[in-house]
């Protein structure tokens, strides 16, 4: 307990020193102040806090991560990752600092505004100001509070009313080897106005060496009838920690699809909040997590049905190898008077490692009677008979495992609507399969 208290005060001192150097506009200073106050009130979550009970934050708490002071140098393998998705609108942040050279915002279509926060200065439009920190749970989520206090730049996106953005928007967050023992606080805000349509992909990429704390917050506001596809690819290097939050505020008849692939970092956690505040809102959460070695990967979701006629679908699948540990904790909450809700939640875990550990807590909290809600959860290993069947056909054990695992996991890639991204994530999956070389050839 004492160690945690000490850690907290270090960050408070950081904040004092940090804010002294910045002459931020008043509204931003106020927001940051609110962030640090919220963090001060909460501190780092202990294991007595229900939502953090399973998350062992010790590696993060032992270290003091100072905010990254500038972009580091990176090798070609990181640079390669920037262009993998082909022709897109792109913002690139290196260790939290905007990199105009790698970014591509040349041919923005009508209706799309895309720029880093740092370029706006004082002139940030009111609609963005309202969204930035406007819906997230700064008061109850300690790492959102920490991000709010420390974020120095951010990706700001605005899609005008009725606009359809054809090309996807990609935001790449790179962690260089120089980010060792540094904290990076990426912030992304997407406001999709009425009846607009946009696809956003966030890529979290990093080198293997640094022990960095990546603490992103993504805020999505889908106004009436808007259609937002959001993809998160979390593949930092094996040494890092990723503690992120995604928040989607869904208005009347708006549709938000969230897809997450998590396979990087030593300690990774993504908290997804989806508020369905308008009637007829529709939210889909799909997730795939691939862990190996001693990785820890955690997904917490909160789907809040606050208005009637809402639909939500959640499917999370995990493939656990080695001694890895995963958590899926999802809550579907139907508020009073939110009738005619249709909510489903699924969590499926495949244990390949004998010592792998899967926690699954699918939760329902229902305060209305005319609803259809269900959840399901399974944990198991590969079917011995299926493996044997493949063996009898001359397919080796590793390869057979690879094929069956691919069949299990690839289902989660199907909802991806962009071919380039689908191919990319499929490649990531293939690399993680047992007997990767052989399986890759067969498939």
């Amino acid at each position, binding site marked *: 307990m004492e160690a945690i208290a000490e850690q907290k005060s270090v960050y408070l001192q950081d904040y004092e020193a940090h804010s002294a150097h910045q002459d931020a506009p008043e509204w931003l200073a106020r927001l940051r102040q609110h962030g640090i106050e919220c963090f001060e009130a909460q501190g780092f979550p202990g294991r007595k806090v229900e939502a953090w009970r399973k998350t062992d934050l010790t590696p993060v708490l032992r270290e003091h991560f100072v905010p990254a002071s500038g972009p580091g140098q990176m090798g070609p393998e990181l640079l390669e990752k920037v262009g993998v998705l082909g022709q897109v609108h792109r913002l690139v942040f290196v260790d939290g600092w905007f990199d105009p050279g790698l970014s591509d915002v040349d041919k923005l279509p009508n209706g799309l505004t895309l720029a880093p926060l740092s370029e706006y200065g004082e002139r940030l439009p009111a609609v963005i100001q309202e969204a930035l920190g406007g819906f997230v749970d700064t008061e109850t989520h300690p790492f959102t509070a920490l991000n709010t206090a420390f974020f120095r730049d951010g990706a700001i996106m605005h899609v005008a009313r009725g606009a359809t953005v054809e090309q996807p928007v990609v935001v790449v967050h790179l962690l260089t080897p120089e980010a060792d023992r540094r904290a990076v606080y990426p912030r992304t805000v997407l406001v999709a106005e009425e009846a607009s349509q946009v696809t956003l992909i966030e890529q979290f990429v990093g080198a293997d060496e640094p022990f960095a704390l990546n603490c992103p917050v993504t805020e999505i506001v889908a106004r009436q009838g808007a259609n937002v596809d959001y993809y998160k690819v979390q593949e930092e290097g094996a040494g890092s920690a990723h503690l992120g939050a995604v928040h989607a505020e869904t208005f009347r008849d708006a549709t938000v699809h969230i897809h997450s692939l998590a396979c990087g970092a030593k300690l990774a956690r993504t908290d997804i909040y989806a508020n369905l505040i308008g009637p007829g809102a529709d939210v889909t959460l799909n997730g795939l997590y691939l862990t190996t070695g001693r990785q820890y990967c955690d997904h917490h979701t909160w789907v809040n049905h606050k208005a009637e006629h809402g639909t939500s679908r959640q499917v999370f699948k995990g493939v656990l190898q080695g001694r890895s540990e995963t958590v899926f904790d999802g809550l579907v909450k139907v508020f009073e008077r939110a009738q005619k809700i249709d909510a489903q939640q699924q969590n499926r875990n495949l244990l390949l490692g004998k010592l792998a*550990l*899967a926690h699954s*807590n699918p939760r329902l909290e*229902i305060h*209305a009677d005319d609803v*259809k809600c269900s959840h399901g*959860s399974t944990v198991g290993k590969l079917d011995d008979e299926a493996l044997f069947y493949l063996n009898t056909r001359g397919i080796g054990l590793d390869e057979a495992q690879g094929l069956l695992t691919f069949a299990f996991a690839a289902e989660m890639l199907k909802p991806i609507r962009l071919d380039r991204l689908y191919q990319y994530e499929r490649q990531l999956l293939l690399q993680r399969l047992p007997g990767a070389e052989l399986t890759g050839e067969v498939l």
Partner: protein
Amino acid sequence: MSATTKTLEELTNRKYEAGFITDIEQDTVPPGLDEDIIRFISEKKAEPEWMLEWRLKAYRNWLQMPVPEWANVYYPPIDFQAISYYSAPKRKEDMPQSLDEIDPKLKETYDRLGIPLHEQEMLAGVAVDAVFDSVSVATSYKAKLKEKGIIFCSMSEAIREHPELVRKYLGSVVPYTDNYYAGLNSAVFTDGSFVFIPKGVRCPMELSTYFRINAANTGQFERTLIIAEEGSHVSYLEGCTAPVRDENQLHAAVVELIALDDAQIKYSTVQNWYPGDEEGRGGVYNFVTKRGLCAGNNSKISWTQVETGSAITWKYPSCVLRGDNSVGEFYSVAVTRGRQQADTGTKMIHMGKNTRSTIVSKGISAGYGQQSYRGLVRVTPKAENARNYSQCDSMLMSSTCGAHTFPYIDIQNSTAQLEHEATTSKIGEEQILYCNQRGIATEDAVSLIVNGFCKEVFRTLPMEFAVEAQKLMEITLEGSVG
């Protein structure tokens, strides 16, 4: 639809039928809790020194424990100093030797509840060990059980007569450090049942106990301990009702089951404590710790519960599957209406190889009732080939009630196979229409559907209880929903 609404109103307005108070002089200590009270209880029951020591250790530990707040239930903080911790009905003789010697008023109480001891003895062949508040007043069929070497007596008697058994097993499944209310119970428990089934014996009858809270402001703290030796078999029934009271009554019981190699224990409960009035005033706080240990290989523990009463229920009958090939089962039907709250479920801890567990939980909420299923399935690293199936279904009967599901699944062994499913729904309008078409009135249709919904659980109850449970459900959801 209007018929359903009407019947729902009837349901929420239904008065508690078992609500009456027996006027018997009570030997009660003043409210309050300190070491002297514990010494008083221990002395009053003529307990040996080690028992008192254990109680005091539990009490000192309890003082250090924080009040648990994680459950999804809401109630004002309990003033433990306002509760009287000991009360016993006064009797002319020290111990009644047969049923005829029971205080007539006591017997009347049971008669009005529809559980006449004589009839039960004769018709059902049930040995009844009735607990009236804190002291056992009647035991029956003792001789028959004695013949087989079965010990079935009150806890205080067991402490006097069989100290070696009690000392060995008491607290071995639920230690006094386990949780707040178990700690309190360990310090102040007054009585309860003790069952010991020797090696290879199959208990010839269902064992049952009726608990009843009677004196005002008297928390009842039972302690039940059931030990099934190698190859033995026992089925235990527990049922309870309580009279109308305005103040909340605390009921913090502890039940411990121990099954050795090849032994089987079946524990069934019908719980119908006073649930409080429509505004949620009064009613019993039912904070119970129940846990079974499958200590031996091939052992089996099965919990069945029908929970219709209590203002607040906080109860997780659990199984620790330590022996290889051991089996744990949990079947539950819980009904909350009015302002009742229930946070109930189970824990299945798989430790041995090839262990299996089944969880079937059915929740019905009406009025302003709030209901949570909270369950944990844990498979430890050495539990090869563990298998679990969990199903929790909720039925909602008003727009103001709530049904919540919080399953926790922790798997540390890749050979484990786990399934969890949950659904929440209301009675389909189409289902009712279908029945209506066939000449079944809405009321009957609802009854039919609810009975079907609960059947999976009722089926597992012993005959005597199945009838009572069905009747209880009918009364509870009378005229409305089945």
